[in-house]
Every structure is written in C-alpha cells, then in structure tokens.
C-alpha cells in the first residue's frame, strides 16, 4: 500500500528509507525530506500541550497530485513518513494508523536488539520484511 516508507531519526537524518523500486526513488526521497518540515511544524504546534497529549499519529502531512504523505512521530522524536499512492483510495485512515503502529512495533523490536546502536541505519531483516509486506500491497 505504501509506496515509500522512511524512518527519520531525531536529528532528521534517515535511518531507513525504502521505496518501491519502480518509481524514481529520488523523488520519494525528496518528498520525504520536504515532509519533515511539515512534521516539525505539527510537532511544534502542539508544543505547549503536554507531550503525552500529543498524538503520535500526525495524519496527512500534505497531499500532492499523485501521492499523499502521512506522518507519525514517536515520543523520542523518531519520525515515520509514509508515502501512499493517491490512486489508492481504499486506504482509510485507520489502515494508515495500523500501518504506523506496525512500523512502530517493528522499530521498537529493532531497538531492543542489543547489537543495534541507536542512530545506525536499520538493517534488521525482520524490519525489512515487515516493510516489504506493507509495500508489496502496492498495486
């Protein structure tokens, strides 16, 4: 369902980014990069509120003619960005949320691995498999 999935670290560098190979990956990378601004904006908007109250799921960050970009931020400021094909109208918000939840869980599993140093690129096969499963559904 997703066309591109990216995991961005707190310092806004990518920990993991993967796109469906058919497309021009660079374009997706650029989209993800620009979406970071939107993410930061959304985070700061709720700045005054308690962190707890800030929902992790940010929702649609911005739509383009072909794609929609969704965002999700964890409490440790790790961001997940997902680019979805606009033509895939069947995707509901709940599904996106569940996808982010899965991403988050896989990410925590990666974190639990003592051999993973936070800040490294994510090279976990399990994580890859999970992401693949989410992307394979792309038509």
């Amino acid at each position, binding site marked *: 369902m997703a066309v591109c999935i990216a995991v961005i670290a*707190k310092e806004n560098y990518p920990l993991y980014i993967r796109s469906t190979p058919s497309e021009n990956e660079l374009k997706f990378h650029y989209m993800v990069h620009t979406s970071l601004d939107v993410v930061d904006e959304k*985070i*700061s908007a709720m*700045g005054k509120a*308690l*962190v707890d109250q800030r929902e992790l799921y940010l929702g649609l960050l911005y739509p383009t003619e072909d794609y929609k970009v969704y965002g999700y931020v964890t*409490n440790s*400021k790790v961001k997940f960005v997902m680019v979805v094909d606009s033509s895939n109208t069947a995707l509901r918000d709940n599904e996106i949320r569940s996808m982010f939840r*899965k991403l988050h*869980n*896989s990410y925590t*599993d990666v974190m*639990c*691995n*003592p*051999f*993973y140093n936070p800040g490294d690129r994510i*090279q*976990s*096969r*399990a994580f890859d*498999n*999970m992401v693949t*499963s989410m992307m394979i559904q792309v038509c």
Partner: protein
Amino acid sequence: MEGLTLSDAEQKYYSDLFSYCDIESTKKVVVNGRVLELFRAAQLPNDVVLQIMELCGATRLGYFGRSQFYIALKLVAVAQSGFPLRVESINTVKDLPLPRFVASKNEQEPRPAASYSSDSENQGSYSGGVIPPPPGRGQVKKGSVSHDAVQPRPSADQQEPASPVVSPQQSPPTSPHTWRKHNRHPSGGNGERPLAGPGPFWSPFADSQSGSAAGDAVWAGHSPPPPQENWVSFADTPPTSTLLSMHPASVQDQTTVRTVASATTANEIRRQSSSYDDPWKITDEQRQYYVNQFKTIQPDLNGFIPGSAAKEFFTKSKLPILELSHIWELSDFDKDGALTLDEFCAAFHLVVARKNGYDLPEKLPESLMPKLIDLEDSADVGDQPGEVGYSGSPAEAPPSKSPSMPSLNQTWPELNQSSEQWETFSERSSSSQTLTQFDSNIAPADPDTAIVHPVPIRMTPSKIHMQEMELKRTGSDLTNPTSPLLVKPPDLSEENKINSSVKFPSGNTVADGYSSSDSFTSDPEQIGSSVTRQRSHSGTSPDNTAPPPPPPRPQPSHSRSSSLDMNRTFAVTTGQQQAGVVAHPPAVPPRPQPSQAPGPSVHRPVDADGLITHTSTSPQQIPEQPNFADFSQFEVFAASNVTEEQDGDAEKHPEVLLVEKASDPASSLRVAKTDSKIEDKTAASAPANMSKGTTPLAPPPKPVRRRLKSEDELRPDVDEHTQKTGVLAAVLASQPSIPRSVGKDKKAIQASIRRNKETNTVLARLNSELQQQLKDVLEERISLEVQLEQLRPFSHL
C-alpha cells in the same frame, strides 16, 4: 615405514588422490596444503590427522612422498573405520574400506549417490563409508569430480577440486540444502553438498585452495556444528569462498570454540548418531555446552541474560555485528531484549552454525524455537520451516521434511511474521508479569496491616455470635462465609484480645473469656479480615473500587437509632441474642458494652449484662460491623494501645471502649472517603456510641471503604485518632454516667442522641480530614505537573 600393501582398488584410489594432491605434478611429492585439505575432508579429528601424519612419516620427512601419502591414506581409512591408529594396522586391517573424503561439491548426479548409498554400507554415518569400487566411484563422484586424475571420466567439472572422494552418498538428502552456502562456485551446484560440518569446508578448500590454515581451522570445526549430518548436499551451490573467507577469519574462534566444545569426539558421535536431517537441531553435547556458557553469564537457569551481556558475549565470536544482530532477532523470541536459556541456546547455536559457514535462516528454525528446543526428541520435524521456507532449494528437499513441517512452518512463520501476534505475545508475557507482580502486591496487603477488618466483637454468647456472623455473612458479599469462622488471623485475634482486654469492663475476666472464645471473637474479625482480604483480592488493589460490600451490612446501620432500637429489641427479645446487633453492624457495638451501658435502656443493660456475662464467659465481642474500616483494625489497635495505656480500670473501659469506638469510626471515617462510608461510620459510631461499653474492638469505622491506605494515611489517622479519642473520651466520659441512671426509654433516647452527636462529630472530623487529604493530593498533582512542565522543554528538542 612398513611396506604397504594395497588392494587394487586402494591402489587406484590412492594414486588418484595422490595425483589430486600432486598439483605440482611432481609425481613425487604432494603439496602439503592439498594433503591437509584432503585429510580434513576425511572428517577426522585434528589429533587423528596429526597422528596419521606422524605415523606415515610425513612429519619426519617434512613432505608427503608417495609412500607416505599412501600410508596416510590407509591410516585415514583405518581411522575412519574406527580402528586404532597403529603403524601395523595399515597392513593388518583387512578389508579396510577406502578412506572417505567428503566431497564438498558434488555436482550433478546426486542421484547416483542414491544408488551409491545403496551400495555403500554405511548409511548416514560419516565415518567409514564404503566407497564403491573405483569404477563406480567414477560415477559416484558425481561430477564433482573435477578431479581429473581421479575420474577418468571427463565430465568432472574441472573446477571442482572436489576431492576425488565422493561424499558418501549415503545420507539421504536432507535439510542442509537450505543452507545456502555462499557459493561462489557456479559449478553445477546441484551435486551433493555434504552439509556436514566438515563437509562443506572441503569444497571451499578445494576450490579456493586456500591456505591450509583455514582448512585446519575449519576442520577443527566439527565440533559443535549444527547437527547437520547429511552428507548429501543439495542443489544449493556449494559453499563458496565466502565460507572460506569466513573461516579464516573465524578460524581462531572456531578452534577455540571447538575445543571448548570438545568437539571432535562429540562431533563424531553426533554425526554417527544423528540421523536427523535437522541441521538446526541441538545435540545434547551442544546443549550442555550452551547451558554451561549460559551459567557463566547468568547462574540462574531460569533467569534472563540482559541484552548488554549477551551482546558482549556474542561479540566475542567475532561475527559481524550485522549477523549478530540478525541472530539476535531470530533468537529473541519474545522480543524482550533479554535471553532466556532457550533463547540463548538458539542464539549460540546460530552463532556456531554461522561460524561453520551455514547461512542464517530467515526464520528461526523450529528446533530452535524456545519451547521447541528439545534435545534429541524433536528431531521429528526434520527441517525447520525456516529452512523450508527460504531454502527454496531444489528438489533435494529431504523427504523427511514434509508433511509435519508444513504445518509447523505455517504456524511459526505466521507468528513470526505477524507483528500483531508478536505484540500479543509480548503483551501476554508482560501482562502475565504484571499480573504476577500484582498478585504479589496483593498478598502482602492481605495480612494485617490495617486491612484487617475490625470485626466488632460481640460479647454475646457464642450462639448468638454465630447467628450474627451468619447474618453478617448473608448480608455481605462475602464469598466464604464459613471461612472467617475458621480462619483466625493471628493478628486479629491478638488485637482482639488486646482490645477485648481493654474494652471489657470486666477486664480480666473479659479478656479471659475472650481468649477462650477466640473462635467466636475472632470470627467477626475473620469476617472482617476476610472481607478485607476479599476486598483486597478482588480489586487487586486493596481497597480498590467499591469497597466490597462493607462487611455485613453497612446499610442497616443507616438508621442508627432505629437499628439500635431494633437491636435493642432484638436483644431484649432474643435475650442474649445479638442477632439484631449483628444485623446492624453499627448497632452491634453498643451492645456489647454491658458495663457501660447498664442503663441506657433496659435492653441495653440487659444486653450489656448479658453481654458482659457473655463476655465474661465467652468474650465474644460483638463483631462490630465488619464493614467497619479494615484499616480501622490498625487504628483500633493503635487506639486500643493508646487507650490501653490510658485506662486500666474497668471504669475506664467504657470510656476506652467508647473512645475506641469513636476513634474507630473516626479513623474509619477518615479512611473512608465515600459517603457511604460515612454512613457506615455513622452507623457504626452510633452503635459505638450506644454501646459505650461495648468495645469497638472493631473499630466501627467505615473501614470497608477504606482502600488500602498507605500507612502514612493511617498514621495521621492514628494521630488524629488519638486526638479525637481525647475529644471523644471527654464526650464519652459523660456518657457512661448516663446510661446507668435512666430508664429504658430515656436511655434509649439519650443513647440515640449521644450517638447522633458522636456521629456528627465523627463526621465532621472525617470531613476535615478528607479536606486535608484532598489538599495534599492537589498539591501533589500540582508538583507533578510542574515537573512535567520542566521536562517538556527537553522533549521538544
């Protein structure tokens, strides 16, 4: 060297091998490296190889001449057949099978292997496979024959240096094929790849002709290699240089590991014994080794190894971090960042396998699943689903892998893949943990501390007491009505005793009586405690929720006066019956204070007397409303202590009792936070007031509601309690005098008035306390919010 007599087959075989090793074509001396590789392929322990070399004279000469080589080969055969290595054995052992060398890469014709295997006598065991006669051999060599000299047939892929020896085709093709060896060798691939530990090493060496060192190291590796015993290699490409590269790198480690594991012999045994195709199976020795290693990190076999410790440990294996990370992912089954014994064994096994050149599976093999790890029994499944899944290996799928596997495959992979399931798994585990912790928390809450329900102790005769108990029980939601009777919390009993002693006007007698009638007296306490206990249990947090129906019936206590009247009437009617009292817990307390309330009403005096008598005889204290504060016990105790100190007189008893009662209600009130509590309390207090003399052993206080309060809460309560007792004492002091004089009605009225007043005061006190607590809580909340605010800025980095 003695003369060596070789059979024709041997002669030919040996000459082939010699040619193979004779890369320099000197026809005289073979290259040591090749020889070593060859010997390694023979799958003999290192020391045996050294022995052979020594025996054949190569060490003496420093090189392998033809004769030495032949002798060595013969010795290899001897060793493989299990005979002791002796110089004489080369000639004495008759009918020695040809030495077997595992050919790592056997290309085509794995099938001929089948036929081969049929020919060969040994099945599944590496050692001493019989090698078919040379001509057959040629075929058998399945193409891996790249060994020109060995094979007359041209088909051999030249590139496969695969030793002239054909791996014993015996072993039925099995799982190993899943092990994709890094095969850089494009050669036909299919052949058999002896996945046996040493096996794979053979081909890489053959291929790369890497230094013997690597070979040595790898050779040493038999040890805990995965149980893979299959000789047959599957279509998977033969191990490639990657393996080799790995080996050299990990050589030292391997050797160390191996030696530690005391591999060689074990390996042999294992190889011979295991007939399973399961390459991931952990043998007993391996398992034992793993367990020992586990113990060095974590002595408790049921405990966990934290991630950091495991990281250090596995880093020592010098595998790349990425692979270690993958191994961890596979083996940390519950994703908790720690390794249990099973997980650790699986991880270790994977490390060992990796070091031996086996690819890591994508999914955890079944035999390594934490709960499936079974030493020799779980062999059933043959290959793990993981292997099946990704191996995609060609046809060689071992026949064993079959029907049982798919089912297992499906279940586990599903679990592995579905994150939700993993989540639930972890949730389950964590929740279970929380549950357990919870329980443990609850347990302590039980015993005493304050939760003990201040069962009012009645001074009524046991029978009445029993009735009361029953009434209470029926009224309450206690589930174990009878248990309270049986259970005697020692604390309660003690406290009761103390209280009773304090309370009963008769003092000693009462106390004695009380003690004697422990069963009875403790009953209400039991009930109370049981109630409290139940409460605590039910809520997993004592005092949680709605205080389980406060002991027997809080409600009835409502109309105090009426209840009291009722009680009184009951008392009168029933004589000593305290049933009425029981029915209205609050009402009860007053009763049993015969001493004090001789007067208030006819009933009461009667009751009191009766009570007194009863108490004297059997000091049952009217179980003051069991619903009275659980904690009140604590307070009561404190109060009683306080009161105890205060009075020593029988005269004072009533006061004390009253005080206690009042204090109890007060404390209970304090504790109780709900209106209902107040009701109960008032009810309790009313009877308490009434009884005056009755000992509120059971601190009438609402208690029930009283959620488990921290001791802090209780302490202040106690303090207040004492203060209040003082106040109450004054009030009470005045009361005792009253009851005596007036007639029944007057007494009743006065008693009720008194009760009401006391209730009012108690309520007021409770109210103030609650207000205070509310303020405290608010302050805490404010402070927490402040802290949050302070922390928040950081989160916005």
